């Protein structure tokens, strides 16, 4: 291995750090129509009348669209493989608006000023309806978010729009009630995680044009180009063959761009006007009409023997999908599937869930995808159990955690084929100085230093669903082109897939050029989400390279006049095993394949996995609490991750660090709050605070790699798991410092200080 496991610089790095124009808005034609969306001021209302005549007549206005101008077939904006588990519950514009910020009209014009002016003169008469804002009262509420008859669920996810249910379900193994009833010690608690925002630095944005062939070209900042094609086809009611989607560089995604939030608006404008059109979401739109993490209330019950053996785990999740069902039925699954199996030695488990519609901003995919919420609950409950048992929480985990070879009943019965969770935990505890620092120390100035710990897992792609295809060809002079359908969103998949290809082909990584996603050209890929790219698309890369090598060997053998069995390829040449002097160089192979050739030296392979091998990790934090003001300062965060083979240590490390800081933000101050009318208070980066470099302390990251037999070079995934430990670890540390148990996030200074006063 020359490149895999090496800190190779990203192929696009120097363009990015020197500020080259490579993002959507940099590339959009200068004569693009500016598209904006007029949004509902009500959480729930019916549009009775909408007057656009004056707006349409204003100078510089190209079109104004209302619900009367859009196709009446419902669709979902969730970027998922067809048939999507998310219900078809949307129209581009609907007569019924379902949250403050829902789309009411689309306005396109020559410049922003003209469009803003036009938006002001559109007169809308609403019949204001009572909204359902509290997700605890949504199920079977007489107020329905989606009463419409043409609402439909394509998959049997337990959805029922007449009950405000986006999904429901139950899974179990063994008799959990009996096991818990027999347990010596039982902990039971309810945990509440609120919606939080991905807050990628580049907001949602897309531009659209009509091409030479009369097809709609969509250049979009998206994680899911192929799903964009299908979703636009559904939304606009035009054939998929009429749509081409291209992904330029993306300014971050974190799952937000796994939902087709903005694409429909310029697309319908271009279809109606024939003109290029672009939409750039404001930060306010990105924070109020987007696709944040699902708010969840997770009830956990755990039973254990008095010496600390966990016998049964029950998880009951209530998830709030908001006004639309994007990712509703699937995120909830991870709240159980990625928490319960951390302790696979338990005899029994039950996982039950409801996902409900409310008149809040529609939720969506955010790094961790339900696992974050479930792991906060279960890991917090485990820390409570340790207290109840009088055990060290690390020792309790050591006794019960999933080890390599264990069958994980809570994870579709998969076996942990590669698992260094035990080693991750041990090393993490060492790094943070657990033995010396647990539970706390009071400092001379009265501040309290304490530690907390948590574990996490995730998956590597969606088993039996995610598909990655990769094409590779050799060109003249022997350089290779690698075509992928996976979306590099800054994470570096263009580079790490090239690293894998370079090792498969025994060449320099610079000899492989990578082509990003263009749905007209790239092989199919379900997209960059569900921690799938390294594992799924990585395996497709390995397969495609193997096939290409076989083709090159066959071609070389033909040129050398020997049997294909008798040649070998060493990266530079195909040579005859019986007479090593007889060889043809890679350069010549590439050139000859372009002259009077009848075989293309081109390979395409796809990969999909029947399993989704989990990466595992442990995270431990040291904090300092100011008991008077309630401030919680993160001093040090230690994390050890088992993501299988680390393909690019630099990029993997930065994934971990970035995820940890997002998790720290979620634990301590990120929050979306609604008033009684359904308005979001945190509508700007002035109000929605993400961590700055002064808020995160010191991060220390290590890897302890198992080897995943089914993954490329032994690799699993890294992208999502990294956000899951901070919330439970910090809550644990706060408990150790103060005795206050926080079951709701974020843990603000106010909650800590006022909690201590109450005590």
């Amino acid at each position, binding site marked *: 291995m020359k490149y895999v496991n090496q800190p190779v610089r990203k192929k696009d790095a120097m363009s990015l750090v020197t500020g080259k124009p490579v993002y959507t808005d940099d590339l959009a034609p200068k004569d693009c129509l500016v598209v904006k969306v007029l949004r509902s001021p009500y959480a729930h209302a019916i549009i009775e009348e909408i007057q656009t005549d004056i707006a349409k007549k204003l100078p510089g206005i190209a079109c104004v669209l209302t619900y009367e101008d859009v196709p009446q077939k419902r669709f979902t904006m969730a970027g998922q493989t067809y048939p999507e588990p998310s219900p078809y519950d949307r129209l581009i514009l609907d007569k019924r608006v379902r949250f403050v910020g829902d789309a009411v009209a689309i306005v396109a014009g020559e410049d922003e000023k003209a469009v803003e002016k036009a938006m002001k003169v559109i007169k809308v008469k609403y019949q204001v309806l009572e909204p359902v804002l509290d997700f605890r009262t949504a199920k079977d509420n007489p107020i329905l978010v989606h009463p419409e008859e043409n609402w439909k669920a394509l998959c049997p996810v337990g959805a029922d729009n007449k009950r405000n249910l986006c999904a429901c379900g139950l899974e179990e193994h063994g008799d959990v009630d009996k096991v818990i009833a027999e347990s010596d010690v039982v902990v039971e608690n309810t945990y509440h995680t609120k919606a939080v925002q991905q807050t*990628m630095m*580049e907001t949602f944005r897309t531009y659209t044009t009509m091409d030479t062939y009369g097809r709609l070209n969509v250049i979009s900042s998206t994680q899911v180009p192929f799903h964009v094609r299908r979703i636009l086809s559904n939304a606009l009611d035009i054939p998929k063959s009429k749509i081409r989607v291209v992904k330029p560089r993306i300014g971050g995604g974190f799952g937000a761009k796994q939902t087709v939030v903005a694409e429909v608006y310029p697309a319908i404008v271009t279809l109606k006007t024939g003109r290029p059109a672009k939409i750039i979401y404001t930060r306010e739109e990105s924070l109020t009409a987007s696709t944040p993490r699902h708010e969840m209330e997770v009830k956990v019950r755990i039973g254990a023997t008095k010496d600390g053996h966990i016998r049964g785990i029950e998880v009951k999740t209530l998830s709030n999908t908001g006004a639309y069902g994007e990712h509703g039925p699937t995120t909830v699954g991870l709240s159980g599937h990625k928490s319960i199996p951390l302790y696979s030695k338990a005899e029994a488990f039950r996982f039950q869930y409801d996902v409900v519609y409310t008149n809040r901003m529609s939720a969506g995919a955010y790094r961790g995808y339900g696992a974050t919420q479930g792991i906060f609950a279960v890991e917090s409950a485990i820390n409570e159990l340790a207290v109840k048992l009088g055990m060290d929480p690390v020792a309790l985990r050591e006794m019960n955690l999933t080890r390599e070879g264990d069958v994980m009943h809570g994870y579709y019965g998969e076996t942990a084929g590669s698992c260094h969770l035990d080693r991750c935990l041990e090393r993490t505890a060492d790094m943070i100085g657990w033995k010396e620092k647990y539970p706390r120390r009071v400092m001379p100035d009265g501040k309290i230093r304490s530690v907390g710990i948590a574990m996490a897992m995730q998956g590597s792609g969606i088993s039996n669903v995610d598909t990655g295809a990769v094409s590779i060809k050799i060109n003249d002079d022997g350089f290779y082109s690698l075509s992928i359908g996976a979306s590099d969103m*800054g994470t570096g998949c263009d580079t790490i897939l090239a690293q894998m290809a370079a090792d498969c082909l025994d060449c320099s990584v610079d000899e492989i050029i990578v082509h990003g996603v263009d749905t007209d050209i790239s092989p199919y890929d379900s997209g960059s989400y569900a921690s799938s790219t390294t594992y799924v698309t990585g395996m497709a890369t390995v397969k495609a390279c193997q096939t290409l090598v076989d083709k090159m060997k066959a071609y070389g053998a033909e040129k050398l006049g020997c049997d294909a069995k008798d040649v070998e390829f060493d990266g530079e040449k195909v040579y005859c095993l019986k007479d090593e002097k007889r060889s043809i160089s890679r350069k010549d192979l590439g050139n000859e394949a372009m002259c009077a050739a009848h075989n293309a030296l081109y390979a395409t392979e796809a990969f999909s996995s029947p399993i989704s091998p989990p990466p595992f990790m442990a995270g431990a934090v040291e904090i300092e609490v100011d008991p008077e003001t309630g401030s919680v300062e993160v001093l040090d965060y230690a994390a050890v991750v088992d993501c299988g083979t680390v393909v690019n240590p630099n990029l993997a490390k930065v994934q971990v660090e*970035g995820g940890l800081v997002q998790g720290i933000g979620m634990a301590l101050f990120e929050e979306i709050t609604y008033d009684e009318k359904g308005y979001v208070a945190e509508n700007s980066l*002035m109000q929605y605070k993400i961590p*700055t470099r002064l808020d995160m302390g010191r991060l220390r990251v290590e890897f302890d790699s198992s080897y995943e037999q089914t993954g490329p070079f032994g690799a699993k995934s890294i992208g999502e798991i990294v956000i899951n430990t901070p919330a439970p670890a910090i809550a644990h540390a706060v408990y150790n410092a103060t005795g206050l148990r926080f079951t709701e996030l974020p843990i603000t200074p106010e909650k800590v200080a006022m909690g201590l006063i109450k005590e």
Partner: protein
Amino acid sequence: MQITIKLNGKQVTADVAPDMNLLNFVRSQGCYSVKCGCETSNCGLCTLWMDGKPVLSCSILAARADGHEIVTMEGCQEEAAEFGAFLADQGAEQCGFCSPGFIMNVLALFREYEDPTEEEIKEYLAGNLCRCSGYEGQLRAIRAYMAYKKGGESK
């Protein structure tokens, strides 16, 4: 109204609306490195130098910049690439969308402080948000760059 700005070393005269901000002006002049990440002066993505000081171009009217000297990353490519290589060698540029604003402020930091402490670095750069990197890799890049610069000087 007409303004004249020394943009990346060249005198540029243009007719602008009085409410156009400097961010949109420099982008209209082809300086696409300058990004917008918020509308509330909180993210630091639009950082450029006005008379040598790092400022938020989203918050300054183009009219206010009349007669002043503006430098964007397009005007300091060599310096940007020199530091940028250290960022790239940590993989800490990630999506890259905040990189130009961040690097412009890093370079400004080194103009104000010869040998900044870690606390000074963090505080100076606190107005540059990044959601990908978790900041730690950026700090590693800065340390490596400082070591390189010191090494270079001693040679």
